[in-house]
């Protein structure tokens, strides 16, 4: 509005005063977006299609540059404190930088995983990396946004690139279907979100988050129907993006249809961006009217926790299972939002950070396991993996246990953090529901892990039983018993010849690196949690 004011008062000299731009505050975002544009321009300059390796190289370099920039920002913020820049549209605080770092790391890992995937599928060209970087810059913008309009900008930049990414493997019909579904529902939710912005603007007179907070703290709105409707619509929009129940319908289909690296990216980056904006909008701007929105978040959290966990139990497809499991995780992160305290925000941030590694690592393993054409995604395809490729199985087991919240992984502390935030605000029911859903969820993670560690078929098992039986007289009987029970007990389809005969999957070096980093992060910071917890805590302290 200052601009309009100037225009109105000085008609003679119609200069538009652009605000001072503090480039440091948006540096990672600029690097990410610049990298995407650079790669796209360069690729069009050459007659030959740019190799996948080149794309990977540029994307990795750009991600690392963005990460370094974000670390520099962190230094800046921790020494000079939080500030608001670019006409109040961008928040330059610990929370913002935390999200930049999460997204930059997620982008780096995705670039590494995408390399192997693209080569295997024979997809040429740099578009995958261009789109991923563009999407990442959108997520970064959502983390930094201090104005509803900027949040919307970030949301769209992030989502539009994701719609295309979901359809990326044009050889798969499911991929196109997934993208269409995602696009239609996503566009719909964006429209709802914009309407929400309009209503909030109507109720408070501003789209700037601190100004909204300021307005709400000074005024008591007697009849706040417009504000509440706006809040509800904003929540619907966010609900779609984070895939909270009941706005989750798209996510299993989209996860199943999208290329696996994209599904991992979606689960990590889109959620990081959307949760960043959700936390900033609701906890900091609408903190004064929390009594109005907390019950809604409460219901979303309970539904997401239970529906995610229970429906995931019934899945036969690993990617669909991961989609429902990610809905369950969303429920957990919502516990921190519902608490709406510093502890809650910090716990949610920690959860987002650790979940990013878990989910990208898991989808990296799924990418590898899917083989040519993304076909081998049934749970039964994982049977006997431990025997064929023990390292892959071990890595996946660790990641699954981490998601289950097993002790001494980052997953436990993440769940512990959000549950303690809920208990801190006397949300005992919510906390118990969350823990019960964790119990249900742990079960399907463990089932997958056990599947990997169980023998493939009759032949292998009987031989084993015979070899290890204690007394020679009954060894045969024991072995036979084991083999028969194996068939009866394991719930998946009986092993077919094809499963038994399946060979080894190849793990590209860069993918292995990404998986290794995820596993190492999960275990090392599960056992020595100090630095990351501190990081999330600091990020919350430096909240504007």
């Amino acid at each position, binding site marked *: 509005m200052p601009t309009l004011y100037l225009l109105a008062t000085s008609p003679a000299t119609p200069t538009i005063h652009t605000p001072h731009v503090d480039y440091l505050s948006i540096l990672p975002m600029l690097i990410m977006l610049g990298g995407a544009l650079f790669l796209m321009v360069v690729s069009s300059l050459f007659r030959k299609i740019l190799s996948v390796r080149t794309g990977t190289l540029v994307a990795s370099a750009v991600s690392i540059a963005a990460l370094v920039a974000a670390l520099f920002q962190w230094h800046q913020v921790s020494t000079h404190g939080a500030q608001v820049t670019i006409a109040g549209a961008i928040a330059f605080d610990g929370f913002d930088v935390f999200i930049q770092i999460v997204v930059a790391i997620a982008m780096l890992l995705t670039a590494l995983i995408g390399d192997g995937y693209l080569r295997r599928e024979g997809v040429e060209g740099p578009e995958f990396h261009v789109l991923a970087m563009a999407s990442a810059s959108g997520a970064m913008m959502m983390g930094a946004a201090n104005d509803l309009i900027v949040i919307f900008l970030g949301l769209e930049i992030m989502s539009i690139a994701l719609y295309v990414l979901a359809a990326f493997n044009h050889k798969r019909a499911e991929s196109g279907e997934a993208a269409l579904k995602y696009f239609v529902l996503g566009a719909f939710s964006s429209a709802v979100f914009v309407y929400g912005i309009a209503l909030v603007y109507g109720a408070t007179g501003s789209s700037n988050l601190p100004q909204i907070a300021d307005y709400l703290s000074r005024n008591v709105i007697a009849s706040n129907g417009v504000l509440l409707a706006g809040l509800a619509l904003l929540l619907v929009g966010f609900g779609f993006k984070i895939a909270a129940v009941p706005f989750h319908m798209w996510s299993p289909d989209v996860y199943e249809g999208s290329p696996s690296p994209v599904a991992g990216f979606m689960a990590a980056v889109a959620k990081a961006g959307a949760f960043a904006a959700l936390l900033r909008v609701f906890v900091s701007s609408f903190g004064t009217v929390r009594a109005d929105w907390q019950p809604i978040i409460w219901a979303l959290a309970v539904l997401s926790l239970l529906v995610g966990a229970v429906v995931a139990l019934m899945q036969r497809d690993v990617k669909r299972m991961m989609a429902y499991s990610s809905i369950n995780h969303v429920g957990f992160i919502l516990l921190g939002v519902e608490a709406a305290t510093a502890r809650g925000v*910090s716990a949610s941030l920690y959860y987002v950070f650790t979940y990013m590694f878990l989910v990208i690592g898991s989808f990296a393993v799924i990418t590898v396991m899917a083989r040519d054409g993304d076909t081998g995604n049934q749970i039964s395809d994982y049977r006997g993996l431990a025997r064929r490729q*023990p390292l892959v199985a*071990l890595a996946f087991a660790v990641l699954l*246990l981490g998601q289950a919240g*097993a*002790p*001494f992984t980052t997953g*436990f*502390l993440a769940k*512990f*953090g959000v*549950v*303690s935030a809920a*208990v*801190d605000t006397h949300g*005992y029911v919510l*906390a*118990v529901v969350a*823990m*019960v859903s*964790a*119990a*249900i969820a*742990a*079960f399907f993670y*463990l089932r997958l892990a*056990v599947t990997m*560690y*169980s*023998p493939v078929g009759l032949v292998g*098992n009987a031989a*084993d*039983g015979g*070899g*290890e*039986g*204690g*007394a020679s*007289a*009954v060894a045969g*009987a*024991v*072995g036979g*018993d*084991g083999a*028969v*029970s194996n068939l*009866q*007990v*394991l*719930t998946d389809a009986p092993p077919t010849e094809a499963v038994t005969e399946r060979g080894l999957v190849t793990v590209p070096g860069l993918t292995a690196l990404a998986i290794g980093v995820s596993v190492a992060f999960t275990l090392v910071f599960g056992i020595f*949690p*100090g630095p990351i*917890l*501190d990081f*999330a*805590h600091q990020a919350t302290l430096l909240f504007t």
Partner: protein
Amino acid sequence: MATSTPFPYLTVLVLVPAIGAVLVAVIPRHAVAAWFHEALGVAVTVVTLCVAAVVAFKFKAGYGGFQLVSDHMWAKDLGIHWSLGIDGISLFLVLLTAVLFPLTILGARARRDPRSFVGWLLLLEAACMGSFVSLDLVLFFLFFELTLVPAYFLIGGWGYARRGYAAIKFFVYTFAGSAFLLVGILAVAFIHQSQTGVLTFELPALMHTHFSGSEGVLLFLAFTAAFAVKAPIFPFHTWSPDAYAEAPTAGSVLMVAVMAKLGTYGIIRFDLNLFPQASRTLAPLLLTLAVIGIVYGALVACAQRDLKRLLAYSSLAQIGFIALGTFALNSQGLSGGVLQMVNHGLVIATLFILVGWIYERRATWQVSSLKGLQAPAPVLAGIFTVAMMASIGVPGLNGFVGEFLILIGTFVAHRWWAVVATGGVIVAAVYLLWGYQQVFHGEPTAEDAKTRDLSWNERLIVAPLIILIVLLGVFPKPLLDRITPSVNQLVVHVDQVTNTRIPAGLEPRPVAAATPRHAPSLAIATPRPPADPGSGTAAPTGRTP
């Protein structure tokens, strides 16, 4: 906090098996000889046993507080400490764990894939050790939960016919119980924070938190839900017969002998320390459940046709006894409960190992298809008899001492519960002796006659257990000397908080002599003066076969 020691024995105690598990996991199968991983497992557990022995040696008898404490900040932002310590209540559970693991690895070997099997067992040992020595509630919870993972994989991977079902049931029940525990722990810590301004999960600090009546009761129930499922206490036991029966022998042994004790230990360590008032208020409820468990477990055990299920239900009765002693809330009852945890662990481990060996020979646990094993396998029968007698509670064997103390303690505090429980003792004699008669007596069939007796290796494996069973039966003093001070401290804490009037001269004091013959002299801290312990002792001595 007690003085910290320069050398962190307890941390080592937890880390040795954990590192062993990692070693087993990273050393590939093909790089070494077939026996290597099992040998490594035995070596690691023996080293752990040595560390535990050093801990026992360093442990000062007659002091009730926590010893060998090590305390480091672990997750500063969340207020979690790596805080370990040991007292008389946990010392012997640690030793029990340390003794049973090597024997189990040797005596109940895997039918397939010994490498993963040993790896899970070592992880389980680390988790059990960690649970017993944790003084930080969250750390305890971490280890308590960690026990689930290896146990699940042991049942699911190496169990018998219905292992998948049993593993899932076990996992879901216990995890659901833990859900309440974690929420309870957090609530306790935040209530403490609101009173003192310090966020901590350390038991010594939280012990002095004040809870309002309903808060205390609800939190007590939340904690007890987890422990009652884990133990299991009636009516939360329905997972246990399936899990114990379908698990591989090693799994059954360790789940019943060690993991079940996590539940009863948790009740003593956390429920009584944190919620003394609620413990006293709800004691009649828990006593009733315990007595129902004793009688119900014994009666259902009578009806079992499967040796493993029989033992599973007998454990339900035994755990009932431990709970009974615990909620007597006096020195004898609690000492008896703690002692009985160790005794039951030794006895039931022996019985499950023996039953596992019977299965190895005959591929059945059905009582009806076994007959007259005494003739072809006299040593097996003899050892089985000793363990069975200890389980029944024959004087001179370890089972007697614990049960006797429990019954005295309960009798002086809650007479009628003790009377009913004594009935359970008699039924216990019935089902065990019946089972024994059918399996070992009579004329063996042709197939039974071919049953091999125990080999020398097997005899050597059970020998330490039998020696301990007899030794603790005739000379429990070293144990009671260490258990009683800690128990008395706990009883005093409970009494102080609940303002129970202790008659002059009857304050808890260390037990001087504690052989079974002089056991009635243990009747101290009795609220009712002339309780006449003699009538309480009539039953235990009167049910010798």
